[in-house]
Each structure stands twice: as structure tokens, then as C-alpha cells.
């Protein structure tokens, strides 16, 4: 029997995964690096970065674990009129609206305290627009991931959360800066 608690085994299983993950994260790093000048002169936007990444991952993991549970209970169905699917999507949009509204105001205030000059309207617009786009992405990728892993015979509990949270982490930064380049 292999020893699940040997150092060598834990390190060998984890390192390739972690290395692949960090190379993937360089995509969002490259976007951040491209906007270095804008970020350094507007601290409010720097404040938005970790919040955007964190909230995207949270919303994604909530949606995925709910969809997976509903799949096992037999109440999930890929149909816009399915009540559970509508409840999940509705909750994600309501949560995103609340959180990114609060985040916009907070990031603006912190930005001003740190010497930034960006106005409340713009920070709020960046936060809300990128947050709502992110909510759409979270719902679409979660449903797609659950559908695909179910059809391919994978256990969605194992596959969807790591895949969707990482995709949404990276997409969170991409969306944020797509909106920043239009608004700021």
C-alpha cells in the first residue's frame, strides 16, 4: 500500500499542479504588468485587484457546488426555465450587485486616502460593470463545467471547482482591465 502521508508523495503530487497553476496565473500577471503605470498612479484600481480576484473565485465555488448538489439530487436541468438554475443565477447577480457596489465606494475612499485622484463615479462604474460581467462569466462557466464533466463521466465535485475558480480568477483581471481601458 502506498503511504498517503509520505513527504515525497505529497510533494510529487502537488508540485506539478502548483507549477502549472502559477504559469497559468502569469496570464493575469502580464495584464497587470501592462497596466503598471495606470495602477501605480491610481491606487483605487490597485485596491480593486485582490477583491475582484477573491470575489470571482468565491462566487464561482458557491455556484459550482450548488449546481453539483442539484445534479445529484436530480433537480438540475440545462433549461433557462429550470427553477433551481434561475435561483442560482439570480443569487449570483444579486450578490455581485451588492458586493461590487460596496467595493466601488470602498476602493474609491481608500484610493483617495492613499493619494489617488480618480472620482467616485468612475471607480463605481469600473467596479459595477466589471463585477456584473464577471457574474455572467461565473454563471456561464459553472454551468458549462458541470455539463461537460457530467457528460464526460467525471465527478463534478473534483473537477469543476478548481477549473472554474482558476478560470474566473484570471478572467476577473482580464475583465477588470478591459473595463479600465474603456472607462479610465
Amino acid at each position, binding site marked *: 500500500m502506498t503511504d498517503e502521508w509520505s513527504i515525497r508523495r505529497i*510533494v510529487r503530487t502537488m*508540485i506539478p499542479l502548483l507549477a502549472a497553476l502559477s504559469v497559468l*496565473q502569469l496570464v493575469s500577471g502580464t495584464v497587470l504588468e501592462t497596466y503598471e503605470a495606470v495602477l501605480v498612479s491610481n491606487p483605487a484600481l490597485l485596491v480593486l485587484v485582490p477583491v475582484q480576484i477573491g470575489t470571482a473565485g468565491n462566487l464561482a465555488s458557491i455556484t459550482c457546488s450548488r449546481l453539483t*448538489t442539484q445534479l445529484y439530487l436530480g433537480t438540475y436541468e440545462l433549461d433557462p426555465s429550470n427553477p433551481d438554475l434561475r435561483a442560482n*443565477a439570480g443569487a449570483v447577480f444579486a450578490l455581485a450587485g451588492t458586493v461590487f457596489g460596496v467595493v466601488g465606494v470602498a476602493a474609491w475612499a481608500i484610493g483617495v486616502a492613499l493619494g489617488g485622484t480618480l472620482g467616485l463615479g468612475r471607480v463605481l462604474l469600473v467596479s459595477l460593470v466589471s463585477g456584473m460581467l464577471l457574474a455572467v462569466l461565473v454563471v456561464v462557466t459553472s454551468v458549462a463545467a458541470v455539463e461537460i464533466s457530467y457528460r464526460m463521466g467525471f465527478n463534478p465535485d473534483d473537477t469543476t471547482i478548481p477549473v472554474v475558480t482558476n478560470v474566473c480568477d484570471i478572467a476577473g483581471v482580464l475583465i477588470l482591465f478591459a473595463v479600465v481601458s474603456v472607462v479610465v
Partner: protein
Amino acid sequence: MPGHDTARDVYRQALPVILVSLVAGLFAGTILGSETMRAGISEVPGLLLLLPAFLATRGGVYGSLGARLSTGLHQGLIEPRFRLDRRLRNAILASFINGMTVSVFIAVVTYLWLTLLGTEGNLLQLVGIMVVAGFLSAVLMISVLIAVIFVGYRRGLDPDNVIGPVVTTLGDVFGVLFLLVGIYIVGVVL
């Protein structure tokens, strides 16, 4: 009935967890937006490039340590005592090795990517910052995780429900803070 809530129910249940992580994110963001950090970002090429990877691996390394300890407790393989038996010691050492290896790996890949993009980077500086930040994160995350899991378990909390929020919250806040410490120390030494 589980899995059969309305949008309002889901909203109410999820909001507290989301708000906690929001506060943590704002803390991390404030450190990131501080004058010292912005100066560091301008002075150290590649710092923004490695930031998402550095933060993401915190979740990977210490989230899996938490999940492993939690499974071990549930299976009765480890005991919720602060005594180093073989399994507990191995799990801790392995996550330390993972954390440090990946931190150095990120620094090297960032340096290579910078060179590829045609920007002048400093390998020693990036590795130094990642070693300091990786080491401090490892010490803090491992001690807090073990304390929270063991104390929580003895009081009847299911560690599976605690690990996620603890790792994301602490990982983000202290990840960014230790990055700042790393920049400072490497700036003094180099």
C-alpha cells in the same frame, strides 16, 4: 429542502462569507495601494507579473494542507494535539517544501518571462523577495491553520467548513503584506 432554495435564500446564506472575504480583499488591496508598495512596484520589474501566481499558490499549498489534516482527523489517523507524530510532521514539512519550491519557481519563471518580453529583470532580487515572502507565509499559514483546525475540531467544528475562508482570508492579506516585507528586506540587503 437542500439544493432547492430560492435566489433570496442563496443570497442570504452566501452574503456573510462573501463579505468576510471582501473585507480581507480590501485589506490586501489597501496594502497593495499603499505608497511603499507602489514605490516597490515601480522599482522592482516583474512584481505585478508574479503577484497573481504568488497569491493563487497560497490557496493551493495551504488549502490542501488543511484538507489533508481535516481528512486525517476524520479518519482518526492524526490526533488534534500539538504533538509531532510522523503524519503531522510529514504533512507540515511537505507543505513547507511545496510552498518554498513554488515561490522560487514563480520568481524564476517571472524572470524568464520578463526577459522574453524584453524587460530588464533582476533574478537575485525576485528570488530573494519570493524566498522571504514564501517563508513568512509558510510559517504563519501553517501555525494558524493547525491551531484553527485542532482547536475548532476539539470544540466540535467541522474543519472542512473552516479551512476555505481561513486560507483565502489570511492568504490574501498576509501574502501581500509579506511581499512588502520581502521587498524591504531585499532592498536593504542587495
